[in-house]
């Protein structure tokens, strides 16, 4: 990738450091992270390239990249990074920022996954696995995806037809509301 770099390039790295305490500027491009990454074969911008792009202050490019959406948070990169950078925390910050700032998420599927998951927790206090899988497939406009697995799991007693709700749903709703309130008061 050919890029033009101008101005203070370190501000994006500082912004990330402020959010999670990880100093991306210490990355010296050994590429151990990319070498061990099980999802590298899918990423257009590999992990080490993403680290470099952050150092170069390429905020736009990084927040619209596919890297953090393919990342499965397996922690292999962070475990092996000789500079001790907790790369997955950087990924989390990038996902959160991309979400909140309305960046187009290159993997619709993953975006839907997180939305549907949290909706279930919000409504029931717990993950309703079967409802989750069905809602997800509806959102992906592929309602029959994995349909062959449903009957297998049901016959094995692995799926509940009805959600398991917590009794004190009020306090769960309150928890979500309180998080939102506190975050908005700081935004």
């Amino acid at each position: 990738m050919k890029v033009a770099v101008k101005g203070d390039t370190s501000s994006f790295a500082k912004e990330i450091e402020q959010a999670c305490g990880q100093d991306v500027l210490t990355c010296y491009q050994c590429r151990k992270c990319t070498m061990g990454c099980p999802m590298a074969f899918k990423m257009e911008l590999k992990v080490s390239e993403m680290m470099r792009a952050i150092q170069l202050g390429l905020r736009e490019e990084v927040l619209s990249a596919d890297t953090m959406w393919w990342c499965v948070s397996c922690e292999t990169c962070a475990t092996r990074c000789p500079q001790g950078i907790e790369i997955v925390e950087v990924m989390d910050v990038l996902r959160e920022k991309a979400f909140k700032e309305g960046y187009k998420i290159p993997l619709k599927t993953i975006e839907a996954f997180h939305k549907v998951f949290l909706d279930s927790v919000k409504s029931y206090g717990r993950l309703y696995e079967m409802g989750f899988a069905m809602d997800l497939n509806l959102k992906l406009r592929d309602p029959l995806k994995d349909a062959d697995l449903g009957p297998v799991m049901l016959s094995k007693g692995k799926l509940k037809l009805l959600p398991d709700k917590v009794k004190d749903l009020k306090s769960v709703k309150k928890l979500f509301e309180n998080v939102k309130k506190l975050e908005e008061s700081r935004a």
Partner: protein
Amino acid sequence: MKYAYYPGCSLESSAKEYDLSIRACCHFTGVELVEIPDWICCGASSAHATSHLLSIALPAKALVQTEAMGLHQVIAPCVACLTRLKVASMEMADDDALKKDVETVLEGSYQGKVKVRNVLDVFLNDVGVEKIQEAVVSPLKGLKVACYYGCLLTRPPHIAQFDDVENPHSMDDLMRAVGAEAVDWSFKTDCCGVSMSLAETDAALDLTNRVLEGAKDAGADCVAVACPLCQSNLDLRQKAIGNKYGVFYDLPILYFSQLMGLAFGATSRDVGLEKVIVDPFPVLGAI
């Protein structure tokens, strides 16, 4: 030995057999579990992809509840829950402002006294190999087990603080203690791709296939796991992998606790053996 017990969502449904078999193993080894009343979901991978505060507050609820029960240790058998609980407890210990935010969100206070434990660690280090060997009534003689640890049991090391990060052996030790043979193989900590499995099935299959292939090549009769996400992915996807790669592994994927329970004399029903999708009875019948 008394612990608060946080089963988590999977153990209530798709991983019921993990819950059953852990309870059975605890029964045989004198571990007392007290389930946290009305526990809520830890938010797993989705909360931390969307809001940091939410990702700490959801699991912190279980820590607060553990304290309220007068207990100091909580067991979370699902490795995804385990990690979220650990992260919450560590981050709150290091960051007073965050702890205060969480207390505001939960509308309650947290003393910071709870230790989050993984279930392998409890059996190996609190119960101990000796006591486990004593409890065995039908050793799993001749059964070749590939112990699979996946991503989060050992990673990242500063959070997991457990076992060797690239070549762990705690599950192998437990399997040997109950008479099985733990095979040597290279995929113990490779990612099985489960978090992509529902949304991007095809990409995940590549990763899943590699793990299963590794276990088969090592001559394993079955794979032992300690995580409901690994279990369901490795078990459920074998048919799709067969269709995609033309290899049908037919490899039973069992919780280590199911195998331990059987060795302690629990029945196949007690440990939910019939709930596993790739039929484990042929390989277990031989022992």
